[in-house]
């Protein structure tokens, strides 16, 4: 017994497969229907969106140790800048760009912090948005990943273990370096060492005096400053006092840098449960969130 049927020949797809689609981050070749780059795990949507633009998007990275507050900061920032008319506005491009904002806001509204970002790059949230500002003549595109702190530490200690980080930081126009101010004030040097490592790594990664990191803008953000109020009064002095290695490194090696203090939670408490202890926000009172980003975008917009 035979069964007749029609088999559609989609020959045009073969043509698509014959063309390599480069990843926007690492330039590695991928199939046209790949969701993630098979080399660095960056979303291929970035490449497709970038291909439609006349001007290539700028890249900004939020870096810092695990638990420094990168996810909360990025989520809070995008929510604040997308809420209503403001001098600086962020318009999300693509549904995936809203994910980090949604996750962060849902968690904070329920008085908890979002879950820790997993180390696997395919689980990271990426933000592709358009930046509009009265201070900028033309709006421009911006891409920001929510990098995992553990992955960043691994990449710094063992370069090229995370190609996406390596390539992204090579191409990035600016960096937001988050340092846990509350931990610094308690006397821990871990944050100081980690931040120093990052600055050192960046300067070695792209060391050219004009085009490399020594001449690219870095906003050093002292996060969780709500838990150490003095940090808001003079962030630079706070950094000099509690993060001397970082302060010296930044001062000696960078030309464009500024220290900021930020806080999202008004107060925090420690909860003891089955999964160990956990910090929770008792209320949300953003302070100093927009200023570092505003400064950074202003610095970036000066460049062609």
């Amino acid at each position: 017994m035979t069964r007749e049927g029609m088999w559609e020949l989609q020959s045009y797809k073969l043509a698509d497969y014959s063309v390599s689609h480069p990843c926007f981050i690492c330039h590695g070749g991928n199939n046209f229907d790949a969701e993630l780059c098979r080399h660095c795990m960056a979303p291929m949507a970035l490449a497709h969106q970038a291909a439609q633009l006349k001007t290539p998007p700028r890249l900004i990275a939020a870096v810092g140790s695990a638990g420094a507050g990168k996810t909360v900061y990025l989520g809070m920032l995008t929510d604040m800048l997308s809420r209503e008319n403001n001098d600086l506005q962020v318009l999300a491009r693509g549904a995936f760009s809203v994910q980090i904002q949604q996750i962060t806001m849902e968690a904070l509204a329920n008085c908890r912090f979002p879950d820790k970002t997993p180390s696997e790059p395919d689980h990271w949230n990426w933000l592709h948005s358009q930046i509009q500002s009265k201070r900028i003549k033309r709006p421009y595109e911006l891409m920001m990943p929510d990098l995992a702190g553990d992955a960043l530490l691994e990449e710094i200690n063992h370069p090229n273990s995370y190609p996406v980080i390596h390539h992204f930081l090579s191409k990035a126009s600016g960096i937001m370096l988050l340092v846990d101010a509350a931990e610094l004030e308690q006397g821990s040097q871990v944050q100081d060492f980690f931040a120093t490592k990052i600055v050192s790594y960046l300067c070695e990664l792209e060391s050219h005096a004009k085009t490399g990191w020594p001449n690219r803008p870095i906003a050093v953000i002292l996060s969780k400053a709500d838990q150490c109020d003095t940090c808001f009064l003079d962030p630079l002095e706070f950094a000099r006092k509690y993060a001397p290695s970082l302060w010296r490194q930044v001062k000696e090696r960078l030309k464009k840098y500024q220290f900021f203090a930020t806080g999202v939670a008004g107060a925090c408490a420690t909860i003891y449960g089955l999964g160990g202890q956990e910090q929770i926000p008792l209320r949300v009172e953003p302070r100093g969130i927009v200023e570092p980003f505003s400064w950074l975008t202003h610095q970036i917009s000066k460049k062609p």
Partner: protein
Amino acid sequence: MFSRTFLDRAMLSISLATLALTYLAGKTFGFWIAAVILVAWLGLRTRQMVRQRYQASDTPQEPTPATTAPATAKKSPLHAAPVAEDTGDLIEGLLAESRYALLLRPQIVGNLTADQITRGLTLLDEEMAMIAAGDVAVQYWRAQGQPRDKSGDLAATFGFFLDRYPVTNAQFQRFVDSGAYEQSSLWDPEIWPSVEQFVDQSGESGPRFWQDGKHPAGLQKHPVVGVNWYEARAFANWVGKRLPTDAEWVKAAAWPVQSSGRRPIQRRYPWGESMERKCAHLWTHETTGTAEVDKTPGGATPDAVHQLIGNVWEWMHGNFGGADLAAGIIDFSSPMKSIRGGAFDTYFDAQAATQFQSGECVLGRKHNIGFRCAVSVADLALSDESADDQAEPTEEDLSTLPEEAAR
């Protein structure tokens, strides 16, 4: 009965008259008899006076109760009442400083004239709203995963007065200027060693963001901030009031409607169920700090208590994290007190609702935390009945109040 002074004067007059008459009449014997009696009486009287003075200096003074009446009232000449003029000046001073709640205490109100009582009651009516006794559902903060009653715990409140506005910089300036930071009787004994550390930017006693013991220029009508729980409590003591409890604050803000046999129906915000941005000074892109306490009249409760929501968080009397803290589920680096109402930088509307409770370190002197005061109806001598009836004000009580407070 004749007073002691009257008898002394009469005795002195009779003795001197007897002496004069016997001398003029040439009765030598009678003169000397009268002179001896006068000298003996003067000696006895002098001895009595010396004894009285020694006894007065040896008698120890009674300790000052901490809660009901502030120490300033005990120290004040109102109790000693040396001369009528001094007492009058003191009462006028207290009225000028809006410390009417001290004067309206049952122990003190007897020293006031009818006019002074009326003025005190008028101030009470202008500055405070009377919240009637009744039940209220209060939500307390619970850690995630902990069982909670979404509608809140039912609590009963007695009748009380609540400040219509948060305490302003101008009001707190009077407190600072009176030297209250040096009056240990106003402060909880546990905090005595630390009071001298409650200083402003220049090291003077006062709220954290002040300079040289003065509030920032132009901000006299803004709520005072940068004060910790103990400073708020000391101010409340100074004016003869106290900090409100969580239940009292929610009772005033949520305006519960009692229905027989059921839980009270309450409002999410003082003006209704949904957030109205024009009714509360909360986070926006333009918000930079506190606003004047009368900035958002639309957000007042039906009985004209303003800015319970927004502008500044308000210190409550009670602790934060009660049940979870006792169970060891949650831990704070230092004791925390309850705050409610949201502030100018509160991001989520839900965190500025009447039922949302947050906490702050008891010594925290934050830029967005202020307070307002309360006083129980039972603690004021509004009428004879109110002093006796501790539970609920009667119709007669209300009739003695000015119209606005009764409404």
